């Protein structure tokens, strides 16, 4: 187990290095840079639209240096915790991330909690009552959840709140540490909309895993021993069916961090997704790089955690 964990940990660092190279290269492959955007977007001053302006801005921002120098500088600064200065917002990127990351994390966590609490039991019920009305209902619900575009679910929730309750959560976003009740009022709806979407595959995966497991010999043996159906399902079948489901939930957890942009926009949540979209649009390299790196880091850590958990849960899993 120790060797497995050490090997897995050693793989983590080359992965992270690879991610930094990909992020750094990709954002620069997109046409246009911040200097051009700053020069042309607000270029209403006469004569402002000149190449000289662009050259000056590039020099100010260090974009005129060779790309390897820029990359090494970024890595060096990053190692000392300095993520740079946002070209667009003109403030430290660390400040932006400190502001936005906890909100996205909270929204992702809330989404996962709602999705898991709802989807996993539904998947189990659907499997143990296969081909009954309960199974059909759950399957219809999960297909519907998957079929509805996310933005439509969000807008429908807004519509229901306005049309039937003439109520909306407060517009002024409050952090959980500041006003927990208001914060939950604001986050519960985007979390619910997103949860409806991701609960569908979780339900379907739980169902199919459960169907596989309850046909296994050891489950039949457990039944033959005279154990109650509840113990057979929850103690023997469910725990074994859960492993791929946990992996899937972990994968979604990482994805959710940056993937709730639409919900953030519709419900006015100032999270990392909206900030990242704006940064990409404005070619704000330091912000994009730091945010994507952070997401990648969370994703890698989650994967690492799951891999280590696998090793712990299933001793058969080992690197050759």
């Amino acid at each position, binding site marked *: 187990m120790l060797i497995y964990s050490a090997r897995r940990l050693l793989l983590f660092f080359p992965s992270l290095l690879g991610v930094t190279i990909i992020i750094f290269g990709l954002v620069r492959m*997109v*046409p*246009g*840079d*911040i200097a*051009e*955007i700053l*020069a*042309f*977007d*607000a*270029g*209403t*001053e*006469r*004569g*402002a*639209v000149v190449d000289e*302006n*662009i050259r000056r801005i590039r020099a100010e921002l260090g974009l005129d240096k060779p790309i390897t120098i820029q990359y090494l500088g970024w890595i060096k600064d990053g190692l000392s915790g300095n993520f740079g200065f946002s070209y*667009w*917002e*003109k*403030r430290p990127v660390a400040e*932006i991330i400190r*502001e*936005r990351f906890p909100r996205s994390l909270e929204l992702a966590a809330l989404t996962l909690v709602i999705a898991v609490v709802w989807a996993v039991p539904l998947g189990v019920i659907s499997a143990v009552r296969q081909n009954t009305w309960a199974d059909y209902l759950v399957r219809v619900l999960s297909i519907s959840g998957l079929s509805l575009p996310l933005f439509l679910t*969000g*807008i429908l929730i*807004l*519509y229901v*709140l*306005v049309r039937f309750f*003439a*109520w*909306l959560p407060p*517009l*002024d*976003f409050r952090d959980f540490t500041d006003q927990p009740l208001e914060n939950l009022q604001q986050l519960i709806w985007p979390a619910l909309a997103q949860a409806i979407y991701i609960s569908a595959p979780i339900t379907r995966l739980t169902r199919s895993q459960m169907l596989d497991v309850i046909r296994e010999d050891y489950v039949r043996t457990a039944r033959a021993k005279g154990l109650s159906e509840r113990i057979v399902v929850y103690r023997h079948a469910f725990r074994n069916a859960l492993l791929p489901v946990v992996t899937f939930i972990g994968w979604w957890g990482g994805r959710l961090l940056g993937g709730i942009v639409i919900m953030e*926009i*519709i*419900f*006015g*949540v*100032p*999270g990392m997704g*909206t*900030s990242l979209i*704006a940064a*990409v*649009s*404005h*070619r704000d390299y330091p912000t994009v790089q730091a945010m994507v790196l952070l997401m990648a880091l969370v994703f890698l850590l989650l994967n690492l955690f799951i891999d280590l958990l696998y090793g712990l849960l299933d001793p058969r899993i080992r690197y050759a």
Partner: protein
Amino acid sequence: MGMRRLIAAAVVLAGMAAGVLPLGAALAQETARRGGIVGYWDYSDPARLDWMIESALSNQQATAGVYSGLLQYDPDDPEQIVPDLATGYTADADGLGFAFTLRQGVKWHDGRPFSTADVKASFDRMLDPKVKSPRCGALLKDIVAKVQYPDDQTVHFRLKFPAATFLPSIASAWCRIAAKHVLERDGDLQSAKSQIGTGPFKFKRYERGSIIEWERNPDYYDPRYPLVDGVRQYILTAPARQMAAAKTGQIDLWYPYPPMTKTQADELRKVRGDQVDIIEWPVNNVWVVFLNTTKPPFDNVDLRRAVHLALDRQELFAKIFEGVGLPCAILDVKTDGAFALPPEEVNATPGCRRPKDQDIAEARRLVARHYPQGLDMDVLAFAYSNQTARAELVVSQLRKANIRGKIRSLEYGGAYSAIGRGDFQMIGSLNTANFVKDPNGLVSQLYISKGGRNFGKWKSERFDKLADAGVREIDTAKRIQIYYEMQRMLLNEDPSGVVMLGREYGYYFRDKRLRNYHFAPVMYDNLTFMKSWLTK
């Protein structure tokens, strides 16, 4: 404006400043109530807050009530210029100078006294050739020869030539005064902590992506104002959330951009028709197609003219704006007054008249003269808002004239980058806002050869001369004729690198409990809420 009228205006301004003349009509009819918080919304986060060197509407929305200028557009009647930090002004006898008398006893929000040094620091920065000041700097740099401070109560602007655009520029929301000590301390006005003004409201807090909040300035130089305790601007980027906030009464005002569509206005009328006033109002925004005049095919006036003739503006406005707006108009009677060509003349010109058959035939003839097999071209479209859909409509109309466009849709950064490099033949659809209450505002941005948004780099010596004359002429009647000539030239001869589709209008609402708020001809010029009040 003749010299006598200028002096008369100065006397009126001085009288109003001294409180001799009556305040707004609304206050006379109804007793204003103090207290309450006005809620409205902002379409986006202002990336940075330094209004001296930025140009976004969101920037102006965030800071308008925090600062004062020498003059301002009257919140009671946003068509009129009234005093602000200056109690009045006098014009030099030769019309080449204006002396502003500064109000005494004004304090910055941090308690420090306001002085001529602040005015100097502000104009020194905005007029500095090395500082890109896309609004105030753009308005004044070509006009102002020097600014002098003869004593501690007077600021004297000496102009390079008599300029009709000077006073509207000084009164513009973009030419306000910042504190010298803040500029020295922070170097700029980008951050929230730098927002120290002399305006009716103090900058209270800014939570990015969520809210910008002002609170009443108890030391405002006019103790009668402001009447409300504060203003909250919510950052609402999703149209669905904006409408939901309007329907549930979370906001008191829908202004200034984007406006509601007709359908949205009808929806709101059904839900809250008894609680809100909904009006159709100019957005002070033009919808245009840009043509790159530096390379084929649009370096040829025939092809520019063919595009102008082929486009059916009425149909475009019907499809995109549900028929609301002024198709084909370059200047708008409602916002530019007498400077705008009469709509009946505009609508009778080739390209704007209906039916379109004759103009499309002429467009086909012009295309065939240079491209017998028809013209194939690249059309750049912005992949935000509905600009790509708009560009597609434009392209579909041009097919009738045998002009076949292929859309290249790029997001914000990529599109501006392509524009900057001149990497386009046509930009299928884009909007440009006018930022000062003067016809020169739009002309100087879009059409003159050095115009910052003359993306097509059109250059016409004749037009430049006319535009220059339009700035220099102070006789209003003569000035009107100059602007008429410019519009006629664009409509009848060469549409330039900017084919005008028309002026955008839209719907706005004001909650009936919000009193004495008036929509302005220029969207930037009445966002202070200084004289507005709430009934409950």
